[in-house]
């Protein structure tokens, strides 16, 4: 500790007004707005809306699996279209956009003490290009032939050949939408990274950043470098489909007819796709890691355990995530030494992730745990992430992956680890920051109902699914039919899972209702209802006004986790509280 008696307070810096963008009309204030907070809301609402479409698709998938031969409107083609769009929307258009475009835009400028992003105009464009990408995606539902049914991985050659649903326009719109998404994301991502680098207020060193910012920052760097692989793959496949090149297309004889393609390599696509695809897991996970660290520390009234280790682990995970993509391709006929390499690098990732889990648990140890709704979701995340991560250790080994790869076990694994776990953090984050965004608390009772149904329901869905995978129930199948190796009880279990899925989905409507209802009826929150230390809770206005701060930018004196500091007058010390002030009142 520094000697608190002698520290003088450095006056906060004033910033000239001219750099700031000022909305002049309703349109520039709420529609074409350059304020990161408004862009964040736009991103979030768009992502949640398209996410609801994916939720409904998952219901349809589950209905078909539980009750085959019942629904005339779910044909095999529809089924493949549903699983494709469900996966693509959830992974890219919901989770990536919500964590980086939503949470990133809202929290980065506020948490680092900036007035806005560094390139507000580009930031605004980012949202509109994202919206365009979503609209193109939605358009594919209405295109002749429907959306693509190639599976969310879009593996060639089948993705663009006749016989795959949506081969006409669906796949073209899908690829165009992805290309647009990546362009839009790149615009936003440049902002998030440069704002963290250059927009920090005085005193806010990198090692004083809240872990939320570290998580979003690192995930954005990861995304900026990984998305080009998907971009390249999408452009090349689009050329294959539209202009007839053969980047990914080998010579093919279809129905006795030799197609125009020849000389391409489908495996090349898999390499490019997974070079993006694996970092994508961490693009979603790292912001979740960061947010969860802050939720736990705040709601347990205790400083985060091992802050430095948490930062280093985030960086280590980011680096490692680029050398593990091959574990998605064990069954592609890979050279055995490569399999050994990828299995090793995959298992090594367990070390930094385990460090994070232990640090969360140690933060909770002997802490003053408040079981608020955000805390419930954070705790739910830790358990779920450990569960999903452990099955990842199984699947990371070639010899275990090969028999399980095409089964429901994999579906259960990745839904736990990168579906349920991050979405629990999304919910926790929304319950936590909603008071800052709207000035009102979300309803606590409804929130608890939402948590317990979602959390327990998710386990009722995915635990049995692991078992289905073990007994060999294949994934991707429209219906099982008569098989010798699948016992009839699998069908009963499928009905059970579907019932749970319908209930969990319905519980999300309660959440949506809560979001809307609390907007006008929620309890007034005040400026800092959770008594948190980070800068976004110290704004002069709630919700924060345009420019975030008053005339002066805040001055940061400490890290983000000064909870329950011995001798301090409050059980939390905001980051912008000078040391002298923090201790004065505590003296008798």
């Amino acid at each position: 500790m520094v000697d608190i008696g002698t520290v003088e307070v450095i006056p906060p810096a004033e910033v000239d007004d001219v750099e700031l963008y000022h909305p002049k009309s309703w349109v520039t204030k709420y529609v074409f707005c350059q304020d990161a907070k408004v862009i964040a809301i736009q991103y979030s609402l768009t992502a949640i809306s398209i996410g609801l479409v994916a939720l409904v698709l998952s219901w349809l998938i589950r209905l078909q699996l539980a009750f085959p031969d019942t629904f005339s409107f779910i044909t095999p083609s529809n089924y493949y279209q549903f699983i494709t769009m469900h996966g693509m929307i959830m992974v890219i258009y919901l989770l990536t956009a919500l964590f980086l475009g939503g949470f990133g835009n809202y929290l980065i400028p506020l948490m680092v003490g900036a007035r806005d992003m560094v390139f507000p105009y580009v930031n605004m464009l980012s949202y509109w290009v994202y919206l365009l990408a979503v609209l193109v995606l939605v358009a594919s539902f209405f295109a002749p032939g429907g959306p693509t049914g190639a599976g969310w991985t879009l593996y060639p050659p089948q993705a663009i050949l006749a016989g795959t649903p949506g081969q006409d326009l669906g796949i073209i719109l899908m690829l165009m939408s992805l290309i647009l998404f990546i362009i839009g994301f790149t615009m936003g991502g440049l902002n998030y990274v440069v704002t963290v680098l250059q927009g920090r207020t005085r005193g806010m060193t990198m090692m004083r950043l809240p872990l939320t910012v570290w998580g979003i920052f690192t995930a954005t760097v990861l995304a900026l470098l990984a998305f080009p692989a998907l971009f390249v793959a999408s452009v090349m496949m689009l050329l294959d489909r539209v202009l007839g090149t053969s980047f990914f297309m080998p010579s093919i004889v279809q129905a006795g007819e030799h197609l125009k393609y020849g000389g391409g390599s489908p495996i090349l696509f898999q390499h490019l796709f997974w070079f993006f695809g694996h970092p994508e897991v961490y693009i979603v996970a790292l912001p979740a890691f960061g947010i969860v660290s802050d939720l736990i520390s705040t709601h347990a009234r205790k400083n985060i355990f091992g802050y430095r280790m948490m930062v280093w682990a985030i960086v280590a995970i980011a680096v490692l995530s680029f050398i593990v993509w091959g574990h998605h391709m064990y069954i592609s006929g890979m050279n055995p030494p490569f399999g050994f390499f990828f299995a090793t690098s995959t298992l090594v990732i367990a070390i930094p992730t385990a460090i994070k889990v232990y640090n969360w648990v140690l933060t909770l140890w002997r802490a003053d745990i408040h079981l608020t709704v955000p805390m419930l979701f954070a705790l739910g995340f830790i358990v779920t992430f450990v569960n999903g991560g452990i099955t990842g250790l199984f699947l990371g080994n070639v010899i275990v992956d090969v028999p399980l790869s095409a089964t429901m076990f994999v579906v259960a694994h990745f839904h736990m680890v990168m579906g349920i776990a991050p979405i629990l953090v999304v919910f926790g984050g929304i319950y936590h920051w909603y008071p800052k965004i709207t000035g009102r608390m979300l309803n606590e009772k409804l929130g608890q109902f939402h948590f317990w149904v979602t959390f327990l329901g998710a386990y009722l869905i995915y635990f049995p699914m692991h078992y289905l995978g073990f007994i060999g129930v294949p994934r991707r199948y429209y219906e099982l039919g008569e098989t010798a190796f699948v016992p009839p009880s699998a069908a009963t279990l499928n009905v059970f899972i579907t019932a749970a899925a319908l209930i969990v989905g319905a519980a999300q409507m309660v959440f949506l209702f809560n979001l809307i209802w609390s907007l006008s009826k929620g309890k007034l929150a005040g400026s800092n209802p959770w008594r948190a230390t980070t800068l976004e809770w110290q704004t002069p206005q709630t919700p924060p006004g345009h420019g975030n701060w008053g005339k002066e930018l805040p001055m940061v004196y400490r890290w983000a986790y000064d909870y329950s500091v011995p001798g301090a007058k409050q059980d939390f010390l905001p980051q912008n509280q000078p040391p002298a002030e923090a201790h004065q009142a505590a003296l008798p």
Partner: protein
Amino acid sequence: MNIIFLFLAVLAAIVAWWLSQQRITAKPWLEAGPSGDAGASSIPAAKIGLGLFLAIVGALFALLLSAYSMRMGMGEWRTAPAPKLLWLNTAALILSSGALQWAQVAARGRKMDGLRAGLLTSGAFALVFLAGQLVAWRQLDAAGYYLTLNPAAAFFYLITGVHGLHLLGGLVALGRTMEKAWRGAPVREVRLSVELCAIYWHFLLLVWLFCFGLLLLSDWTAPDGGLVSVLCRVF
């Protein structure tokens, strides 16, 4: 994927260096008190933004080249001939980049005439390069190496096309810089714009030299002897 790995290794080295400057071994819980500044560098945000953008564009090209070399390593590979015109185009791009460098030097010395001449020359040579690339496409096409002939031809059109599009985007920025230079915007502002353009141009020149050197010189890319296949075997 060797080329993208080399590229990412270079980036990782830069990031590691930067992190080492951020006192990541600090113990922030022991260090309450004022801390001078935020540790943000004095480099303008636009320049850092451009640097980051170049890293992304670099990753894009590294991936394209990686895909090219992987496909080449998978056998049944027939290279497309590189039109002689590409040498002239390369010269035009070098001149364009050089002219921008000249403009940048002039901007530092506040010589507005030299600056404007440099910008114009650079823009003109960039247009020559783009036109030359289009002619090269037509020559290849006329020689029977059309887009869908084989993967080598497709890669040639794709990589040159993506590179050309990036230069086209650069020309938009160059146009806006010219507008500033002629309108008489504050020298500081013009100087930054010219500098950003120059960095972008040099980068695209470097990318082009890589593409040209690694991919289009047919003796290098011969199935057994070329640099790319050597790299393929090493990694």
